[in-house]
């Protein structure tokens, strides 16, 4: 730990915090007893399927649904215009905090015009999904094809068609941030490196696709939606407002969620349509996106081109960095989180680990006739880190300095916080130096360099990559969502209750998608209250049960929800000790709670059990004096006060082998040293990092949504869009430095995206290290064999 943090209840010996405990959800999963949205099958459930635009851009001339309506089993056929009549109005995917941003109003289903291949046009609801698909084939839509805008580079050129004429051009958003004097730094630099980087479009490919089951009771006018979501309260607000149902009449339940990665923080028109059908028909309606429509409708991300430049002294000190980002969005800005967040993040974090003071970053985000883009795990970071870290490597090579040593000279000092980054953002509690030295040790860096040299002699080209990173986690209300105007909470709460049995119910707004949020919250609550883990039950993912909150996104669950749980548990603890004090005629501060019993602090002798407190507190309140009006429950809401994010940091290492004849890359080893502050459950933290890394490696090596010039997605199957599989991925060594954040007492920062954020950068640096002796250099991802062979001049 870099600085002395006062010891808390969480630091007690044998505390549940800091300990690996297994997850209850895991026990259900291995028994085949997981309960995902599609596993819920109420009687008389109907199934929705969609007719989707086969064109990238087309005017809808006519729609004939008569044959479909006659089909056996069909309960409803609904067009975009009919759906719009049930909605309060179109969405506009802008946030006021993005100054000057514009987007065309978007209806849940296309009405007059479809703007991407896959946009929903007609919904068919039938007694089975197969029958719904049968009927959908009978819907006739007459289209007139319109010109498409596919290339982000030319999207703003005068001759390019404008997708939404009302907007005047295809520009969604532009922004420049500038600190110091880049031009002066460049003019005075000994070495200036410039390069251009391109990144393919990705999509999340959660193994469980988007899924929704909507039920409406016309008697009580209550709408219940089970959906695979990270953010139940946001879904509640958006669905209620879009469909004109009072928010308090809408219950959102997120049962087991089969992976999300940012995909499931968004709202999708087909889901609104299926919910509208449930209201109209007063029957349960289920919509499960199949894999083909997942590719064609789930948000995409990462399509960016970045021109970057770094200036350094010959001693290897970075003096400036500047980047220009052209970001390719889809046909609309995704409601309600927008399609410009990614570019904005690239601006925020590129070159973020380093202490230079001159920085300029600009972006233009442009509309394209493609699937709308938005937040996907580690938003913007894979791009910003790849650009920054490749420039750093190239500068180090130009200076003739070892890349590890080059970083050692340039990272922000561990004793220099708080400080303002070159991008103008406050940084606190980081540990670049400590992480770097730990990586040197874990990699066996010097020995690895020797081994690499030996392999070179044998004609085997291995590369060592390094990539330092920062990661914005747990955004605060001063930033985007709170200030942006969308119904997205950036704060989160916990309500915690002592039951008469002595058991504890802990209800949290943050949600679990398999990270172990429930286990982590349970550990915090149990450690704080001094009760066995088995005594705590955590409830999440149900707007009828949990206090209002943002849910899980941007690595916020532990950092925000964890602090809320800790503070709520502290409040409940105080109530328990106060009641105990009355009953035991002792001062509460002489008492402690151990293993479910109130004990004397001095000798740890049990005085009264929590079950007894619960019994008296709920059933025998007459035994308590009148001034004790405790409810044996507490709610705490936590939010960041001033900070934009809780930044984390770390560094990754990679060891790869490149077959210079075939362009194939073999991943040999991978290391991640990261600082997520206090680690609650080491195993769960490690696995977040490992899984995140592989998601990043997929993007670096394989993944890309490929469009042809007509706006047709070319690889919308899992056979053609290549995700990382077990056979090619490396083992990943993970270590944590724990510099507690000062913004909370818990001290935890986010950990879910650190792997993803820098893995593409480190593997690209390793590949370039391997092929540098041949004059090769790769600056495009995914790094397909052809990309490598082209870099080597072999194709």
């Amino acid at each position: 730990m870099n600085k002395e943090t006062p010891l808390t209840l969480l630091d007690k010996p044998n505390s549940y915090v800091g300990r690996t405990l297994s997850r209850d959800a895991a026990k259900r999963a291995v028994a085949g007893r997981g309960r995902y949205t599609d596993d819920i099958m109420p009687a008389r459930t109907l199934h929705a399927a969609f007719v989707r635009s086969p064109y990238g851009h087309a005017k809808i001339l006519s729609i004939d649904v008569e044959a479909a309506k006659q089909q056996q089993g069909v309960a409803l056929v609904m067009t975009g215009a009919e759906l719009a009549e049930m909605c309060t109005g179109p969405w506009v995917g802008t946030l006021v905090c993005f100054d000057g941003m514009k987007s065309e109003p978007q209806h849940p289903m296309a009405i007059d015009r479809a703007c991407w291949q896959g946009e929903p046009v007609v919904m068919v609801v039938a007694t089975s999904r197969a029958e719904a698909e049968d009927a959908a084939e009978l819907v006739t839509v007459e289209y007139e094809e319109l010109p498409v805008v596919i290339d982000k580079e030319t999207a703003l050129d005068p001759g390019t068609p404008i997708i939404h004429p009302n907007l005047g051009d295809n520009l969604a958003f532009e922004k420049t941030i500038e600190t110091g004097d880049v031009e002066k730094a460049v003019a005075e630099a000994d070495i200036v490196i410039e390069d251009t980087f391109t990144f393919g479009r990705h999509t999340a490919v959660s193994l469980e696709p988007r899924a929704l089951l909507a039920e409406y009771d016309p008697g009580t006018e209550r709408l219940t939606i089970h959906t695979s979501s990270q953010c139940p309260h946001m879904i509640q607000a958006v669905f209620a407002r879009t469909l004109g149902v009072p928010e308090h009449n809408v219950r959102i339940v997120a049962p087991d969620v089969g992976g999300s990665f940012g995909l499931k923080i968004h709202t999708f028109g087909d889901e609104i349509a299926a919910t509208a059908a449930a209201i109209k028909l007063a029957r349960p309606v289920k919509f499960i996106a199949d894999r083909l429509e997942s590719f064609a409708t789930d948000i995409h991300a990462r399509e960016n081109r970045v021109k970057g430049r770094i200036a350094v002294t010959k001693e290897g000190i970075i003096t400036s960095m500047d980047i220009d980002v052209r970001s390719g969005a889809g046909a609309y800005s995704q409601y309600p989180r927008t399609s410009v967040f990614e570019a904005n993040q690239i601006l925020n974090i590129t070159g973020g680990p380093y202490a230079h003071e001159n920085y300029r970053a600009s972006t233009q985000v442009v509309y394209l006739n493609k699937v709308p883009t938005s937040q996907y795990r580690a938003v913007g970071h894979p791009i910003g880190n790849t650009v920054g870290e490749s420039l750093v490597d190239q500068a180090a090579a130009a200076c003739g300095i070892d890349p590890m040593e080059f970083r050692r000279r340039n990272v922000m000092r561990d004793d220099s916080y708080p400080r303002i980054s070159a991008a103008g953002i406050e940084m606190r509690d980081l540990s670049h130096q400590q992480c770097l030295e730990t990586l040197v040790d874990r990699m066996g860096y010097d020995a690895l360099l020797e081994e690499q040299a030996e392999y070179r002699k044998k004609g085997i080209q291995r590369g060592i990559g390094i990539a330092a990173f920062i990661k914005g986690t747990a955004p605060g209300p001063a930033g985007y969502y709170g200030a942006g105007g969308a119904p997205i909470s950036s704060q989160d709460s916990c309500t915690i209750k002592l039951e008469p049995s002595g058991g504890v119910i802990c209800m949290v707004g943050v949600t679990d998608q398999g990270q172990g949020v429930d286990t982590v919250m349970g550990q915090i609550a149990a450690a704080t209250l001094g009760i066995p883990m088995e005594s705590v039950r955590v409830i999440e993912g149900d707007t009828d049960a949990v206090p209002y909150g943002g849910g899980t996104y941007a690595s916020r669950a532990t950092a925000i929800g964890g602090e809320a749980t800790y503070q709520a548990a502290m409040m409940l603890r105080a109530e328990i000790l106060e009641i105990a004090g009355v009953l035991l005629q002792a001062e509460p501060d002489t008492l402690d709670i151990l293993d479910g019993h109130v004990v004397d602090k001095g000798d740890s002798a049990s005085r009264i059990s929590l079950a007894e407190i619960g019994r008296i507190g709920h059933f025998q309140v007459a035994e308590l004096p009148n001034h004790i009006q405790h409810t044996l429950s507490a709610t705490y809401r936590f939010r960041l006060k001033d900070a934009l994010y809780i930044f984390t940091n770390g560094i990754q290492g990679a060891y790869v082998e490149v077959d210079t004849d075939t362009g194939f890359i073999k991943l040999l080893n991978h290391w991640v040293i990261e600082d997520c502050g206090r680690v609650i459950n080491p195993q769960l933290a490690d696995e977040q990092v490992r899984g995140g890394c592989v998601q990043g490696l997929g993007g670096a090596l394989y993944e890309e949504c490929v469009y042809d010039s007509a706006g047709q997605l070319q690889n919308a199957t899992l056979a053609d869009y290549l995700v990382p599989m077990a056979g090619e991925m490396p083992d990943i060594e993970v270590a944590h430095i724990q510099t507690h954040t000062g913004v909370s007492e818990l001290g935890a920062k986010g950990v879910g995206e650190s792997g993803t954020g820098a893995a593409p950068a480190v593997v690209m640096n390793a590949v370039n290290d391997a092929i540098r002796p041949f004059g090769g250099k790769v600056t495009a991802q995914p790094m397909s064999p052809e990309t490598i062979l082209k870099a080597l001049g072999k194709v």
Partner: protein
Amino acid sequence: MSEATLEISLTVNGEQVTKTVPVRQHLVDFLRNELGFTGSHLGCEHGVCGACSVRVDDAVVRGCLMLAVQADGAKVETVEGLNETGEIADLQKNFVERNAMQCGYCTPGMLITAAELLREPKPVSREEIREHLSGNFCRCTGYHAIVDAVETTINTRLEEG
């Protein structure tokens, strides 16, 4: 064309089942929707992801690439069945202890696939485990923990004979 159906009789997780099913229904839709065995999941329905892996007559197959009517007369086992018999209790325990899953959606398919390596356990390398699991997609774990759990199970079985 009207919906063609056929009566089939088969054993599912040890129980005899007779049902009339649409001939176009694939095996996993049958297991999930007709019998309520929701442990087998649909991840792609085109045979790539492995989430729907089930055992038919002792061989692991993609449940989405086989029609329910083709299982007439067969012995079908899902993760629920393997859980009941205790055949993979050690593997399940190691998956839990090693946290070899996050969202759990791939887990039944992973377990059924990994169970093939346990039938006649022999020493295997991590690379061989990875190769064996290479047709099962997991988006959450990055595979490392899954390989660990399978490796531990095999080694323990070998040690314990």
